[in-house]
């Protein structure tokens, strides 16, 4: 299966990718292609858009129509693509910094519009590409090159942010929980509206090293031990959830989609 998916959906002549050994971004990228494969979509009608960062390099390796844009702006470019051709399935790949710092405003407005774009945020809790500066998802007291004495900022809870802003499909998984990740991405793409999947990645090179998290394998182990599926969490005591984080499907409630609603106006005007 692995090589089959890679041969089918990756630009194999562009491999190996630029990511460090042990980087979680490759696992997430592969999960996206598996989800696309499972859905049996027409690959010529898929457009994958990204911003800037290690994560945003992913589309360059994926054999679809792909667009690598400016830092933070992937969702705004993607919105233009979807408006120009609503037939296209638009997928956005972005990082925690790209999506929630410089691109935070575009993120909440894309959620609010419920435009049919599936966004996968590769959250490694750090700015990987620029060498380990803290991001809006770096946990409090953790370290980065620009928080050498520990971070005093509070971190964003990305799914909570997306739900509050109006996204109609929201989920979270990790690089360790790939089967869940694949199914969330599948359902996200199926949802006709704005879907957001937070994929918790690992950056052993910067976040891991700065915070003494061990090797990539140890970081993935940590994900395995600390993630609790939202379905199971409801049956657990608050004490047993202490120090854990939730994964799973957080919201799935379809609402009218933006370009469809706009099309209704065009159709109505045609009749008048």
């Amino acid at each position, binding site marked *: 299966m692995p090589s089959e998916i890679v041969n089918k959906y990756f630009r194999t002549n562009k491999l190996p990718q630029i990511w460090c050994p042990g980087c979680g971004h490759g696992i997430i990228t592969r999960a996206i292609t598996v989800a696309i494969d499972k859905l049996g979509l027409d690959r*010529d009608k898929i457009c994958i858009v990204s911003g800037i960062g290690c994560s945003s390099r992913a589309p360059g390796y994926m054999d679809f129509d792909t667009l690598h844009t*400016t830092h933070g702006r992937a969702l*705004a470019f993607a919105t233009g693509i979807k408006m120009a051709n609503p037939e296209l399935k638009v997928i956005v790949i972005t990082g925690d910094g790209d999506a929630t710092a410089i691109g935070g405003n*575009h993120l909440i407005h894309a959620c609010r519009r419920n435009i049919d774009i599936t966004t996968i945020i590769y959250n490694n809790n750090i700015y990987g590409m620029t060498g380990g500066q803290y991001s809006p998802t770096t946990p409090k007291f953790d370290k980065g090159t620009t928080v050498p004495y520990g971070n005093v900022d509070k971190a964003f809870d990305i799914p909570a942010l997306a739900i509050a802003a109006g996204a109609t499909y929201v989920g979270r998984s990790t690089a360790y929980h790939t089967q869940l990740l694949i199914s969330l991405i599948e359902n996200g793409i199926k949802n006709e509206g704005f879907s957001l999947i937070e994929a918790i990645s690992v950056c052993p090179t910067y976040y891991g090293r700065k915070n003494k998290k061990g090797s990539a394998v140890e970081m993935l182990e940590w994900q395995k031990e600390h993630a609790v599926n939202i379905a199971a969490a409801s049956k657990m005591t608050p004490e047993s959830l202490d120090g854990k984080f939730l994964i799973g499907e957080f919201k799935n409630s379809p609402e009218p989609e933006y370009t469809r609603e706009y099309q209704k106006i065009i159709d109505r005007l045609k009749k008048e």
Partner: protein
Amino acid sequence: MKSKARLMQGNEACVEGAIAAGMRFFAGYPITPSTEIAEFSAEKLPLVGGRFIQMEDEIASMAAIIGASLAGVKSMTATSGPGFSLKQENIGYAALAEVPCVIVDVQRSGPSTGLPTSPAQGDIMQARWGTHGDHPIIALTPSSVRETFDLTIKAFNLSEKYRVPVILLMDEIIGHMRERVELPDISEIEIINRKKPAVSREEYLPYKADDDLIPPMACYGEGYRFHVTGLAHDETGFPTNNPAVADKLYRRIVDKIEFHKDEIVEWEEQNTDDADIIIISVGGVARAADTAMKQLREKGIKVGTYRPITVWPFPDKRLVELADRVKAFVVAEMNLGQMVLEVERIIKDKAKLIKVNKVNGEAIYPEEIMEKIEEVL
């Protein structure tokens, strides 16, 4: 579209021109004095099957029109100074990734928020050099309502032909002026569309230029499965760090405009044959220059006018010829001296150079130009 005379605002003529040129997507964020362009687009686009969106800011608007253009739809955004500043990073993206699009900047007074409802021409240099790095750009400056219609079409045609962002550099005077105009029948309008690849997906190299230095352009959803990036890239469209490849790319995108400059540049001159003095101006100021010329001629002073229609690239060749035979040029502009720098560079010290500048939010009046000319005579 019916060719019937009617009273129209410059900003409305811009939208009429854009739709005639084939614009089917507009993304914008309201800002005086450009807002009517967004409003008219919102009203008119769905009537022709097009789409309008009000984005969360100007950065997003610029990004959205690039995305839409890559998906094959002619796209435009409109703004004024503060928003024009915000668009700059993505204008550079369009220049490097060679994505056709039109950006309207209806100039208003001052840096920062300045005088929001007052005219100015302070963005002439920003239109040329606003985004970082060496890059190609075309900027057009209409000076009447009808010309706004024509130049908006030209802006789309040039952007499609050369795969370059084109700036329609208006000013508040032209944007808000109302004139009676008769628009041409749609059948009389020349429309240029981007060149499409003639090869299969396997053979398609998205950034391999033809002899004219312009690569054919596929669009998303057509099955070419190509990659576009703002990183330096080779002919395949994928990033490269190779200095020779990067050098070739940067030079080609600038050269593609430089090599076609004679086809691109446009200007208008009046009474230059016997002129001793030529007034150079663009946009709203050109109307005052016209009046000043006529009144001075009545007094027997031989004045002509020279009006760049493409302010970038600047129509320099003709100016060099004129510099050999006139005594002085008067450069009148609603800024503290931007276009004059270009004129100075072109005419060297062949003729005297007189500046008329105004930045208080008021238009330049014909009398102010006349006074300056009479003063130096």
